């Protein structure tokens, strides 16, 4: 009798352990995201958060990835690179994530890169500057177009309009400064000369002194504003207030309806390079991106009641590239997933068609950018420049 009890007890324990092990085999895949949901980059980070949450829910509802559910852990860095770094460390050490999709701004991304490189966790960034993928780092990828591509798209358009002398007014944040550096570097290749430069702090509320200086330079034929968040909105308002007649170009950092809301009628006539997502319904039917961008933009609008922005689109691309890589890698093994991300080919996303390689962790070319002009408070497509 005594022996029987012991046998039964042992059997029960073994069964319990087997069940427990079985349960842990379908443990969740943890995806971390450090986003700037509040602060000066909030109109980038907020749609990113909503998009990631939306699609994680959708993927989980369809059964997850390789039978495993996804768990999304989001932290808000408030636009501060120091906070981003702290949260990145927490994601790696405490939450033990398998992959990371995030880094709303260039500043926060650059701060977090060393953390993920050391921990050997694949990191898909949602920020703009080219330094994120050049030089290529083994574990770091990105989905948004680079600032260098934005400069080139703008210069191509300027050339088409026969404008060669420009002034640059840049934000002193990492992205604004980085794009300004890229524009200055590639300008000679396009026959463009930068005749004047000004800058402003990302939280400044009045740029009229800087714009006055630009207006007084008689040889300026166009103005390029590099930056994101509220700065460009205030620059645009000041631009119209001072009645500076020459064309104004913004960067893709303002690719959100909120910019138009804040800048008001001053935004009419402003041109910017942006992803096809913003003009989803207006694309020609044979455009490869049209089904993807229309589907995303309708889903986003329905779920959140807000107009779609390219930043949410970059988050969508990041999540989809990661998930497809995990499916190809048959699991969440970090090294295998990283290899599969690098092998992404022909992925049609909201930002363009992605073809990554060991030397290209972005995978987009200039055709992924469209030149848009704002008319009557809405985006319109400008016929492509011969770039």
């Amino acid at each position, binding site marked *: 009798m005594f022996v029987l009890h012991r046998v039964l007890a042992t059997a029960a324990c073994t069964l319990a352990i087997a069940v427990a092990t079985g349960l842990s085999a379908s443990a969740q895949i943890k995806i971390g995201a450090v986003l700037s949901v*509040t602060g000066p980059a909030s*109109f980038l980070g907020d749609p990113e958060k909503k998009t990631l949450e939306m699609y994680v829910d959708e993927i989980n509802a369809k059964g997850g990835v390789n039978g495993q559910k996804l768990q999304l852990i989001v932290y808000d860095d408030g636009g501060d690179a120091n906070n981003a770094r702290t949260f990145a460390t927490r994601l790696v050490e405490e939450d033990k994530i398998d992959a990371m999709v995030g880094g709303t701004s260039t500043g926060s991304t650059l701060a977090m890169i060393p953390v993920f490189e050391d921990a050997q966790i694949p990191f898909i960034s949602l920020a703009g500057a080219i330094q994120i993928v050049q030089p290529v780092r083994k574990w770091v990828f990105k989905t948004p177009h680079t600032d260098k591509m934005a400069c080139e798209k703008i210069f191509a358009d300027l050339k088409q309009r026969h404008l060669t002398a420009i002034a640059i007014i840049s934000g002193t944040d990492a992205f604004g400064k980085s794009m300004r550096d890229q524009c200055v570097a590639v300008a000679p290749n396009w026959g463009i000369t930068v005749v004047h430069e000004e800058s402003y702090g990302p*939280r400044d509320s*009045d740029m*009229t002194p*800087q714009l006055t*200086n630009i207006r007084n330079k008689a040889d300026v034929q166009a103005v390029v504003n590099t930056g994101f968040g*509220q700065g460009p*909105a*205030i620059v645009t308002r000041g631009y119209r207030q001072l009645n500076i007649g020459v064309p104004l170009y913004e960067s893709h950092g303002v690719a959100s309806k909120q910019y138009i809301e804040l800048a008001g009628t001053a935004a009419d006539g402003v041109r910017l390079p942006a992803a096809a997502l913003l003009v989803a319904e207006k694309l020609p039917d044979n455009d490869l991106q049209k089904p993807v961008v229309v589907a995303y933009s309708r889903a986003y609008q329905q779920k959140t009641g807000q107009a779609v922005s390219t930043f949410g689109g970059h988050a969508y691309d990041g999540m989809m590239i990661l998930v497809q890589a995990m499916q190809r890698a048959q699991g969440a093994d970090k090294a295998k997933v990283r290899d599969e991300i690098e092998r992404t080919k022909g992925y049609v996303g909201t930002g363009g068609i992605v073809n990554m390689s060991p030397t290209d962790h972005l995978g987009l070319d200039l055709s992924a950018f469209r030149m848009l002009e704002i008319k009557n408070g809405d985006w319109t497509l400008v016929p492509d420049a011969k770039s």
Partner: protein
Amino acid sequence: MAEFLQFLSSGLTVGSVYALVALGFTLIYNASNVINFAQGEFVMLGGMSTVFLALAGVPLPIAALIAVIVTTAIGLALYRFAIEPARDASAVSLIMITIGASIFLRGLAQVVFDKRFHSLPMIFGAEPLRIGGAAVLPQSLVVLGGATTIVLLLWAFIDRTILGKAVIATAVNRLAARLVGIDTRRIIGLSFAISAAIGAVAGVLVTPITLTSYDVGTLLAVKAFAAAMLGGIGSALGAVVGGLVLGMLEAFSAGYISSKYKDAVAFIVLLAVLLAMPRGLLGRGKIERV
């Protein structure tokens, strides 16, 4: 010349906001020796409340009025629940309490409002006026006019009413004021309420130009504090002068020198004043009888 006028108008506009916030600092400091670092939050609350009431469908003038009243109530609540219970604490403790209150109000704003940037329509339209070659927004003139009106009203209140005299008496010597029957607690509460109201009005007037979000109060409070120190903490006229001068220094340095260091101007001024001229431009020296 046109350039100079442009910088001047930009400097005076932002300077008026600094002046009004600095005035709030001075009022509260005079009555209670407390430097209220939540002052910037009053500006933020005035602007954000108006935006959200307007979004909810309330007509703009009424939304602005309600926003000012709500902010005044918050100022009173700040005094009643945070400052008054700690009235015997040291000055440093009281300052820390106000910093804590400012963080609390910022957090509250994030939850009650949202984390985005908002604007208000300009009262007289966005078409700038051409004055001597400079393009001046009508809203700038509204801000300047509003600031002047508030300063005049405040001066009339302080100088021409019994309650105003009581405020001065409390500022000069609190114990003596109590001895002659002035309820100093109510006077200090009044100073908080007036500062909050002034801040809220400034917020409503300037939001069409500078936009607003839940965290505009922080930097504003620090700069306005620098302005109050520049003008001489304790002097109301000094606060106004300090605010305008700081605004103009920022605009001129951004225009003529470099726009990169615009924010640094306020801090350089603060350091210079604290090191070389702690009394500020118009502050009265402390006279002690030995």
